[in-house]
């Protein structure tokens, strides 16, 4: 590391969504749906010069045992609509939203992202996710129409089609010259034809080229297919590998896949989600972290969590007592609906065995086990410790930065902005001010080239070279 220049850290803020990491019972916890909460959160992120705000999405309320899951924060806004409103209360902050490629159509989503990019002056980003399940499909016209094995092929074609739409305008078509009466240089502006397995569409796209050309593309899946999809098509990965070793392994794996798509190492950023607990000293932060974990995992939450694995109604068990000695039910349809988390436990019998052994060895109750094996905060300590650790992780290529998920809405980011960011700035690893207007500037990504020719006959590649934003 001696001669290597220090990497610049990318930081983003994840508005806490639907999960049991958000501590809604804390007296400081405010509304998770009022716009003032989103505005506060976004302004804090912008004050701290973060790259972007991240917003997840859900399209069906989760269920467990046939009933709506009622223990976690639930209820969230529409992604596009709240991001557009946040563009009015921020000037620089990138606005990243998760939008599903299954229960949407490319023309509409491309219109929405191009519009958001115009309305924010070039700050939009799209986290492309897939879903195929009939459970979510029950809220949509086509129902659960997509077999699981086709989810990535649809996502890839969806993104490719959206890119064709974004590129259907080159940026020089609108003349709007009152004197000559020419508004549009080219009557065929926005023309596109796409014929593929999932989409057979043609016509003219009706949003002119936006400041960034296309939104920045994020990808969030961790499967083999997801990693390939990201390596081929994404600008950044929203990963969950926030430990040093796990992060390094993932980082190496994904970055090594880029070459086969003709892409450079720096054309794909790895940004894991990470949580944190800050206090004046490391000891106090450690104590606080334990308290937060207990708040996150109530007895009722612990039992519901165990049901993911056991796939049985465990409501008669005492969360402060021992683990069930019956085995998971692997024969039935899953008790939990609408949760990606459940897929983590691929071998429930083995997991149950392992958990029983762990609990017995440590004398853990059900609740202790869920707390100890569940989501731990990634960065715990004084501001100096957390700043140092984050920097070490980034310099050691465990990531290119982090998407921070506070556990308190909407003020959970404030202390990080006030205490940790200045230390990172002092170390010269984080910006002290924004250097350009668009999210691509913040992330050091080039503006995408339009593959097409402008109507005036100028090869677009000549024009676009001037538009590279990386210095």
């Amino acid at each position: 590391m001696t001669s290597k220049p220090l990497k610049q850290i990318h930081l983003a803020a994840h508005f806490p969504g639907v999960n049991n990491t958000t501590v809604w019972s804390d007296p400081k916890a405010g509304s998770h749906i009022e716009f003032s909460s989103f505005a506060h959160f976004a302004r804090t992120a912008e004050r701290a010069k973060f790259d972007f705000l991240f917003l997840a999405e859900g399209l069906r309320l989760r269920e467990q045992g046939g009933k709506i899951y009622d223990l976690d924060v639930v209820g969230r806004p529409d992604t596009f609509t709240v991001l557009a409103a946040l563009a009015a209360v921020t000037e620089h902050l990138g606005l990243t939203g998760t939008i599903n490629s299954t229960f949407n159509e490319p023309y509409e989503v491309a219109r929405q992202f191009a519009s958001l990019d115009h309305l924010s002056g070039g700050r939009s980003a799209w986290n492309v996710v897939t879903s195929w399940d009939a459970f979510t499909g029950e809220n949509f016209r086509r129902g659960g129409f997509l077999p699981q094995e086709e989810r990535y092929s649809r996502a890839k074609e969806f993104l490719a089609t959206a890119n064709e739409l974004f590129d259907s305008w080159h940026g020089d078509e609108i003349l709007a010259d009152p004197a000559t009466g020419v508004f549009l240089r080219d009557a065929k502006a926005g023309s596109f034809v796409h014929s593929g397995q999932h989409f057979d569409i043609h016509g003219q796209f009706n949003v002119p080229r936006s400041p960034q050309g296309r939104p920045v593309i994020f990808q969030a899946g961790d499967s083999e297919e997801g990693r390939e999809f990201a390596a081929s098509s994404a600008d950044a990965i929203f990963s969950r590998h926030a430990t040093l070793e796990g992060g390094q392994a993932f980082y190496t794996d994904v970055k090594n896949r880029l070459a086969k798509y003709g892409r450079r190492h720096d054309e794909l950023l790895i940004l894991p989600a990470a949580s944190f607990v800050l206090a004046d000293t490391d000891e106090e932060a450690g104590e606080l972290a334990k308290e937060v974990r207990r708040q996150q995992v109530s007895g009722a939450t612990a039992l519901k969590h165990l049901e993911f694995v056991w796939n049985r109604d465990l409501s008669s068990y005492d969360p402060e007592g021992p683990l069930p000695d019956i085995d998971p039910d692997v024969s039935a349809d899953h008790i939990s609906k609408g949760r990606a988390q459940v897929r983590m436990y691929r071998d429930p019998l083995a997991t149950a065995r392992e958990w029983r052994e762990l609990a017995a060895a440590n004398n853990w109750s059900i609740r202790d086990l869920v707390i100890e094996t569940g989501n731990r905060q990634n960065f715990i300590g004084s501001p100096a410790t957390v700043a140092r650790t984050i920097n070490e992780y980034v310099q050691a290529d465990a990531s290119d930065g982090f998407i921070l998920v506070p556990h308190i809405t909407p003020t959970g980011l404030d202390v990080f902005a006030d205490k940790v960011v200045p230390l990172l700035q002092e170390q010269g690893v984080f910006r002290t001010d924004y250097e350009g207007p668009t999210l691509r500037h913040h992330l050091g990504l080039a503006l995408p080239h339009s593959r097409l020719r402008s109507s005036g006959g100028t090869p677009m590649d000549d024009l676009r070279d001037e538009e590279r934003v990386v210095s």
Partner: protein
Amino acid sequence: MSSTPAFPLHLAVALEGTGWHPASWREQVARPRELFTAGYWADLVAEAERGLLDFVTFEDGLGLQSSLPQSRLRSTGGTPIGELDGRTDQVRGRLDAVLTASRVAPLTRHIGLVPTVIATHTEPFHISKAIATLDYVSNGRAGLRVQISARPHEAYHFGRRTFPPINLDELRTPAGQERLTDLFDEAADYVEVVRRLWDSWEDDAEIRDVATGRFVDRDKLHYIDFEGRFFSVKGPSITPRPPQGQPLVTALAHQTVPYRLVARQADVGYVTPHDAEQARAIVAEIRAEQEAAGRTGELPYVFGDLVVFLDDDQAAAEDRRARLDALAGEPYTSDARIFTGTPAQLADVLQELAAEGLSGFRLRPAVAGHDLPAITRGLVPELQRRGAFRAAYEADTLRGLLGLPRPANRYAAATA
């Protein structure tokens, strides 16, 4: 007009590009190069709010604009692209209306924001949460204007359905009416789903009960279980019930089939009478449809739509219209009555039409940069002098401005 009307008028403005006249973008005040920026829309809505207007609507469409009249579609024949006019001398391209409204919401405080949504090709689940969210970001000022799309080229953008071209004469045939009825029935189902989803959370569903660990009371969340001819939707929404409970639902209507949609599903219908007699007939037809549908209680408001060229003297307005028509190469025509004259003359017309049962008006500025300020700084003071328009915003929500109550939740009522 010295008499004070029994109730004040409601006034809305329909925002469309640089204005409704196709040559409006060539006017000095038009700012055509800023059409795709937030600042342009923020300025227009701020002007409308300065004039104390009830709300603005935002036009939208899922394809490029075209000035080909429907009646000429068939004669152009051939490919679906041929349905577009291929013109380069008019504004083409537009931003998503819901996002534009949302972008403007935090910059305004009182005025209602009513974007257009296309029921034919979009998902009611997505639109329900989008308008609920617009209601949150505007603190209770959201609405929607529901529209159908029968345009073949827009269907090709989605690739899921095909619509053969149709002209106005064909629309009047039984087959044409059947097609139209299907599209409007689908729109009616769409609005029904959107409305049920808004109610699918009771207002007090969020309980944060630390003792039991429950964040929500699941008994106050409701499956809507909508099953219809065109789609089915399970629910509940992912977005809690919006501040207004039910944001404003509006629709433009020109004949019986869409009047039925207004009568059954809308809070506000926009209609296009060209004189007092037509206004009376339209209002009567909508009221009759409403009775036939058994819709009791809250009545839909009926707003008259007018395109306006407003100047301090009539000759100036007429000159301006003639100059724009010359630039466009043909006289401007519209589904709505085109008014050309002074604010005082327009106030007379509005009061005359209102006497026939119209509750308000949605004015379409011929040139946004000129006619919108003429409305807010000319027409509004004139109506205020006559006691026919508010002197200050009297409510914080759009429903409040229109004097509409916050509706009870249909599901809460069912379980009470």
